[in-house]
């Protein structure tokens, strides 16, 4: 073990004294710190913006005067997705998907205002986030640091000297790996501290997720460290080693994630938005128009209700029948909308699974998925937000529909547009929306995030094992 430490120490000393290696190391640390600072300010700004927008939307909604409840159903309300505290490390799909939903009756609107769509094409390619640094840039810089770690010893014949001192091949490669791993750890540290700071309030188990995420990144970087040292041990010259490692980086880091997404899109294509909207509208039309109490689609509801209350006419019911139709109509519409939304989410998850299967070919695909899952910025978190927003929308609309049933008679409701006075009689006191609970998104807990990250985590474990075996094999093949 002591030999391994000595070799690692000397490797670090070499880097410190070599201008090239030192430049790479400083660049690496600088990038790491810059990514932490930039991401922290960007994510904080976005989070503050969303909070402010949510507060403004709540204030506008609650400031509405006395109104007919169905006007409030169509007036609608915006809800915003609060940012995960670990979005400072990995903003995941947050910047690609919408962060707010407009809630209104009879509709499930898509999430809008995605940051990437606002900032243009460059942000879609990959923002300068800590996750991008760790997943994409750090392996490259580790390659630049370590590609010659063993070939240098061969080229300068110092491998003879090392072997002559009784240093075993495995000790040599483990020592070189330890030095490179230390560099990776150094680059990871600022980002871990950033995550530690942003999860200070310990809500929803995000601190535990940070530890798991850090552990995942350590595995990911260890994979690269072992691959770099193995390749350097297997090849004769530094030039060969650099070429092979850069090729490996281009294939696994640059190409494979894009191939995975493209393949997922082709093999499980999503129907277009227009096509889906037409299908939803068609299905909902067959369920009737809940604004029209004479719509034949509600004939059964009318007869059953009259029978239940033992009255002849809907005017004799102890509540506003129009409100009941709106209530039942919303129920039916929501069932249709939820079914389509569920189909869309399943389709998106299918695509994600197909893309994730490429993680056996590239550890980057695995860490990307693992990191987003633990950061709470993955597809499942977006779906969780959409479901929570939909629940809130449904409860809000049905609250207004119940008010319509209870706070006015059918006659008053039907005559609401006859005069100002008739209109006033159908208005509900604004306290109904002032007192309505505001939308609060409760994030998934750590166990749910961990579960979502377990498969890619397992794949990374396999990658680590394979890299370790490769290192041992290259130690057996290494000779001066």
């Amino acid at each position: 073990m002591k030999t391994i430490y000595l070799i690692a120490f000397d490797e670090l000393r070499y880097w410190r004294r070599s201008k090239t290696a030192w430049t790479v190391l400083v660049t690496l640390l600088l990038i790491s710190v810059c990514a932490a600072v930039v991401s922290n300010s960007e994510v904080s700004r976005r989070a503050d913006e969303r909070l402010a927008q949510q507060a403004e939307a709540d204030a506008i909604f609650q400031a509405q005067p006395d109104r007919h409840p169905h006007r409030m159903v169509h007036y609608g309300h915006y809800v915003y997705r609060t940012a995960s505290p670990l979005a400072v490390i990995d903003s995941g799909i947050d910047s690609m998907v919408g962060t707010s939903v407009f809630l209104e009756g009879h509709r499930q609107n898509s999430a809008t205002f995605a940051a990437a769509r606002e900032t243009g094409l460059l942000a879609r390619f990959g923002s300068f986030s800590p996750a991008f640094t760790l997943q994409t840039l750090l392996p490259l810089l580790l390659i630049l640091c370590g590609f010659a770690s063993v070939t240098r010893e061969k080229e300068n014949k110092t491998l003879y000297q090392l072997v002559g001192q009784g240093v075993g091949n495995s000790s040599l490669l483990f020592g070189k790996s330890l030095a490179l791993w230390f560099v990776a750890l150094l680059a990871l540290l600022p980002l871990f501290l950033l995550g530690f700071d942003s999860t200070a309030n310990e809500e929803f188990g995000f601190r535990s997720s940070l530890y798991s995420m850090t552990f995942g990144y350590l595995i990911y970087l260890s994979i690269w460290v072992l691959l770099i040292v193995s390749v350097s041990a297997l090849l004769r010259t530094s030039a060969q080693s650099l070429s092979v490692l850069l090729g490996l980086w281009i294939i696994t880091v640059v190409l494979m994630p894009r191939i995975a997404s493209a393949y997922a899109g082709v093999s499980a294509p999503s129907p277009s938005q227009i096509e889906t909207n037409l299908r939803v509208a068609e299905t909902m039309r067959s369920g009737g128009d809940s604004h029209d109490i004479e719509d034949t689609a509600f004939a059964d509801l009318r007869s059953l209700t009259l029978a239940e209350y033992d009255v002849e006419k809907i005017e004799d019911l102890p509540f506003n029948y129009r409100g009941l139709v709106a209530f039942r109509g919303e129920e039916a519409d929501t069932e249709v909308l939820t079914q389509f939304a569920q189909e869309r989410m399943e389709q998106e998850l299918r695509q994600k699974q197909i893309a994730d299967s490429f993680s056996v070919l590239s550890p980057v695909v695995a860490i990307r998925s693992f990191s987003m899952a633990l950061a709470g910025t993955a597809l499942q978190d977006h779906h969780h937000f959409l479901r929570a927003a939909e629940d809130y929308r449904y409860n809000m609309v049905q609250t207004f529909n119940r008010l319509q049933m209870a706070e006015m008679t059918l006659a008053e409701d039907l005559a609401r547009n006859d005069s100002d006075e008739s209109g006033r009689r159908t208005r509900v006191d604004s306290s109904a929306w002032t007192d309505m609970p505001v939308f609060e998104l409760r994030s998934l807990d750590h166990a749910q995030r961990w579960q979502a990250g377990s498969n890619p985590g397992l794949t990374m474990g396999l990658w680590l094992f394979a890299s370790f075996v490769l290192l041992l094999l290259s130690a057996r093949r290494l000779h001066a």
Partner: protein
Amino acid sequence: MSNCALRASDLEVIRGGNAVLSGMSFEVKQGEVFALLGGNGAGKSTTLLTFMGLLQPNGGIAEVLGQSAAKEPVAVRNQIAYLPENAALYDHLTAWENLTYFLSLSQVRPDQASLSAALDSVSLPIQSRGKPLKSYSKGMRQKVAIALALLRETPVLLLDEPTSGLDPSAVEDFHNIIERLAKQGVAVLMVTHDLYGACHVAHRVGILRAGQLVEVFEADEDGSIEIATVRDLFLQQQAA
């Protein structure tokens, strides 16, 4: 008890399809200096690498103090100090740092005085000792490598063209060191082109040709080897 430190028995090494060593046998006793002379490609360095366990013999055996170099390379390397032809040391380290680092790897912890003494014995200028080796000449690097080999204090010393790049005075110093070590019981196997140096310092000189030991000359009672005889045979073998 045998005092044989190195033993090659019917040693055969094939590299790239060519027999580099074919059936070579010799022994080096403790306290003996054995020099192997040979032209390029005669198999001199291959012999040393086989004793280091860096090359696996295709036949025969190479033993160091009774241990097979092929089967127990790490144990064998702990008994050997090896001085390669081109001093394989780190350019980014100073002489002190090179010595300390490599000695730590072989579990040797010399004090400052021993380090200084070793560097004094190879006549490395004091003002150079704290400078990185990248500023050293080939001869100066060789001196540091020799100091390292001395500080290992191993019972066996393998030298590959040890005086290459050294000035005449340093060569003389080096020969004195080798003689002193031999008197202390260290077995020295030296491969070289330097016929005169070999005859001057070695107890026996072997002529190597195409992987075979064709002749061995022994020093006479007053410790010297007839240079002319060795030279004639050496040149004859080279011409053949």
